[in-house]
Structures are given as structure tokens and as C-alpha cells.
């Protein structure tokens, strides 16, 4: 093996020239574009079709659209959804969800529930940051899910005409 001892240039024999070079790069970044998103004040706005948290919606008449068909519970890959169905006697809908719970710590925001839902009752929202201090409070029940989902305009309203 041949070792070539190259002559080190004079300015590289001192640390401080290299340090100054580094500081110069830092200084140039100080003047350039600012990349940082100041998170709690400034928010990232998700694009259309973003898959955030899943939530239940009501139609413009205030009727809950879910009919407790259990398709989302079956399709859910991490089995985050738990539904208990109740009966509506004398009503053409017949079924409604007595309780509808989504375990947000299991949910992987995949959107299968939205895709499979025949009643268009569950939609992925734009909200993305959820954290809590216990596992119990991260299981969202009907009250929280309807509050997150809100109202979604339904042009057909098929149950209103039966």
C-alpha cells in the first residue's frame, strides 16, 4: 500500500477556518426560506380526500344515518369498531346503533369503513391529532363521533320517503 502524504494547505491547518466555513453555511440558512411550521398556532391543512379520523355523520334532517348493519365492524382490519344494535319498532329502518364505539388507539385510518358503508354514514374527517392520557378515554362513543362528524348533506334521503 502506498501512502501519499499530501501537503496540507495553510488555511486548513487551523480549525477556525473550517469552523468559519460552517458558520457561513449556517448564516446563509438564517437568511433563506423558513421551513418550520409553528405547529400549535399554524396548522397543516389536509387536502381533499385526506384520511383522518373516522366519524359518524347525520343528514340535514338530524337523523343518524347508521343502521347498524355491522359491515364496518366486519371489514375493519384492526377490529377497532364495536357496534351494539338496537331496534326501532314500527319504523321502516328497524335498526339503529345503540352504541357505536371506535377504539382510536386501534384505528389505522385506512378508510375501509367509509368505503364499505352502504348508508354513507361514516366518513374519514380532516382532523389528525388525537392523544389522551388513558386507553379508556381514547375509545370514542357515539356522542364524540357525531360531534366530530357533524352534518353531511344527503341529496337522496331514501328513508324519508318510505
Amino acid at each position, binding site marked *: 500500500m502506498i501512502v501519499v502524504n499530501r501537503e496540507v494547505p495553510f488555511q486548513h491547518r487551523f480549525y477556525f477556518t473550517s469552523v468559519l466555513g460552517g458558520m457561513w453555511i449556517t448564516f446563509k440558512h438564517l437568511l433563506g426560506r423558513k421551513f418550520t411550521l409553528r405547529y400549535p398556532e399554524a396548522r397543516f391543512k389536509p387536502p381533499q380526500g385526506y384520511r383522518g379520523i373516522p366519524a359518524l355523520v347525520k343528514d340535514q334532517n338530524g337523523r343518524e344515518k347508521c343502521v347498524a348493519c355491522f359491515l364496518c365492524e366486519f371489514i375493519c382490519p384492526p*377490529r377497532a369498531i364495536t357496534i351494539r344494535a338496537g331496534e326501532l319498532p314500527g319504523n321502516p329502518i328497524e335498526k339503529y346503533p345503540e352504541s357505536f364505539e371506535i377504539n382510536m388507539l386501534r384505528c*389505522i385510518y385506512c378508510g375501509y369503513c367509509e368505503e364499505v358503508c352502504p348508508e354513507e354514514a361514516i366518513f374519514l374527517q380532516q*382532523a*389528525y*391529532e*388525537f392523544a389522551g392520557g*388513558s386507553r379508556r378515554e381514547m375509545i370514542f362513543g357515539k356522542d*364524540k363521533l357525531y360531534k*366530530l362528524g357533524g352534518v353531511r348533506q344527503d341529496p337522496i334521503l331514501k328513508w324519508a320517503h318510505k
Partner: protein
Amino acid sequence: MQTEKEAASLIEQALMTTRLDAVVKWARKNSLWPMPLGTACCAIEMMAAAGPRYDIARFGSERLSFSPRQADMMIVAGTVTKKMAPALRMIYDQMPDPKWVIAMGACASSGGMFHTYATVQGVDQIVPVDVYISGCPPRPEALLYGLMLIQEKVRTGKVRGPFTVDGE
């Protein structure tokens, strides 16, 4: 010539008093060094949170401490298998008190979609968890929000309820 009373009021104007406890908590809250325990894709988002766009340094946690001896907070980011579990517990035990744990993402929080014999169904079976973050993986913002919850826990000893869109 100032009277004694005037001098005392001057001192009151110049100094601020507080409890030592509050100062210590303030210092702890603003320099939480994380122990990044990244085992899966959540770790990528954790790195993004440390990068220039989300910049975890704004919260005083820029020094990802790869030695548990110098860490205050463990971020469990990713799937924890049963084979990994003893190592995780050992790392937790090596961290000095006081210490906090964030379970980041579905796998660390509850096992997520890995309903299997090989996966720990939530790291709270091994270590005490302070904040659970939802998502698969959570966005860096969600991690920063979890960090803010930890800071609040350091300050007050409690964690606020889950976050909703309108900030409740």
C-alpha cells in the same frame, strides 16, 4: 435618605419570587430529552418531527438521547414484539427518575392491527404510559401534541382529555 419601607418596596419591584418546586417543574418541562425507541414506521414520523419542518427543538426536546441514562421521556414508536419487550423494559429501568412514556401510534398503544400472539397488545402491559397517541402512523403534529400533553403533565401532574377539532 431612604426609609426601610421604601427600600423594601424597591426590592419587591426588582425581584420576582417563586417556589423552588415550580422552577424545577418549569425547567423539566422545557427540556424533556426523549429516548427514541423506534421499532417501526412511526419512527419515520418521529424523525420528521425532529427535522426542520416540525422542529421538536421548539419544545426543548431536540436532543434525542440514544442513551437511556440521559433521557427523561421514552417515545415508544412502533410495534413491540414479545421478543423486544424485555429489552424495552430494561431500557425503561435504565432511565433516571423522573421519567415519562409516550406510546406513539396504534401498535405501541394497543397492538393496532397486529392481533397476534407475537405482538404486545399495548406497551402499557410492560411500562407505565402517560400519553397515548392515535394514528397509524400519527402525523408529526400529533407527536408534538402528545409532547405538549406530557409537558402539561410535568407541570400539573394531570393529562387533559383527548383532543377534538375545536380544541376542547
